């Protein structure tokens, strides 16, 4: 389980707090939707959960241990349980396949160790015909799929997705939604930041409504209404 507990965050001391006393729990096999207006703190909360940003106050617990109290190497091992996928897909130089294998390369793992995960995401997200394409020449939707696939190849226990449906057409949204449902069934905890978007709400077990950096938990049905 990943838990942000009473977290306060601001990017510079002179800035307003982006997150204020915000708490959020991501459990295995559950999908949490993070919703709220632009600039409300959704992306910041995902990055805090991913261990990418250290909050000014509060704790970020991975399986009960505060990652910011750990030494750097233990924190690295702990936060490898979760992968954050940005709303703006970033591709490194090279082919789509090079990008899919990037996380494995960075973790010092052999690609063949993740053969099954690789085959699954390539099939599941319809990337088969794209593997040799120049990753920097992809459309926004294609790049978003590759970016999500790159995270899934790592078989994370927690997946933190920032606006994953934003650039996708209807067919790709459906593919992604099906894959996320499958992953939930396998015990992966998933957080999805988005606007009041049907796919996200359909998938979500609970909704965290974020406004002005504060979090309020709601039932998905209440947001739909």
């Amino acid at each position, binding site marked *: 389980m990943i838990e942000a507990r009473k977290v306060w965050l601001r990017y510079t001391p002179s800035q307003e707090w982006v997150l204020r006393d915000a708490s959020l729990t991501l459990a295995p096999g559950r999908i949490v939707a993070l919703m709220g207006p632009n600039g409300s703190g959704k992306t910041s909360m995902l990055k805090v959960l*991913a261990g*990418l940003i250290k909050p000014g106050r509060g704790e970020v617990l991975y399986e009960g241990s505060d990652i910011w109290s750990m030494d*750097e*190497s233990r924190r*690295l091992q702990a*936060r*490898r349980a979760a*992968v*954050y*996928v*940005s709303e703006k897909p*970033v591709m*490194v*130089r090279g082919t789509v396949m090079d990008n899919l294998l*990037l*996380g494995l390369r*960075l*973790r010092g793992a052999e690609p063949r160790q993740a053969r099954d995960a690789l085959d699954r995401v390539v099939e599941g997200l319809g990337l088969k015909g794209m593997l040799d394409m120049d990753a920097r020449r992809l459309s926004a939707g294609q790049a978003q799929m590759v970016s999500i696939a*790159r*995270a899934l190849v*790592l078989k994370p226990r927690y997946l933190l997705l920032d606006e994953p449906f934003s650039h996708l057409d209807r067919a790709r949204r459906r593919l992604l939604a099906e894959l996320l449902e499958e992953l939930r069934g396998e015990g992966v905890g998933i957080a999805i930041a988005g606007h009041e978007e049907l796919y996200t709400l359909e998938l979500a077990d609970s909704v965290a409504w974020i406004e002005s950096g504060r979090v309020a938990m709601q039932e998905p049905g209440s947001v739909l209404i």
Partner: protein
Amino acid sequence: MEDLVGVTARTLYISTTATILASLWGIPIAYLIASRRLQTLATVFEALVGIPTVLIGLLLYLLLSKQGPLGSLNLLYTPTAIILGEAVLVTPLIVGASHRILKASIDTYGELAASLGASRIQAMALALAESLPGIASSMAMAFSRAVGELGIALLVGGNLKGYTRTLSTSIALEVSMGEYGDAIRLGAVLLSLSLGFSIVARLLGGRG
């Protein structure tokens, strides 16, 4: 006129060495500025881009002359003196261009690497690798600046035939002797080198 091939080769050797030397200290400085957000230092280097070359030549002359603090090294009127001067000249150019490229790269690829579970060193390596075309472009730009430099080459090189004479000092000499045809021929070679490397810089920058 001294052998054109010899002068061109010497000019290339001096400018290339100066560019590599400036990169050896300039790129780490640029990385430090980019990663630690040292904006004041960045502004200082950007301001130094326009420093008159004659001033650098004069300072270096005072340092390397017999009475200067580095006089015992006997570097005045040697190719090494020109290399040092040109390296100092192009350092602000390399730092100024590279730190912007590196900052953008650290912000973008550093976060990507960290989100995929990379350590801080691996994230730094990815950010550096992705900014290589841009850094190479800034090095090519620096070479273009160094290759046509005159003030430093004259003051600390002395324009000695067969030893410290470069394309730019040769042109100055030919013009002073009224040999305009030779000066134009040397100028054409210098222009092709400078343009060639500017084009390389643009192509490399475009790939980044």
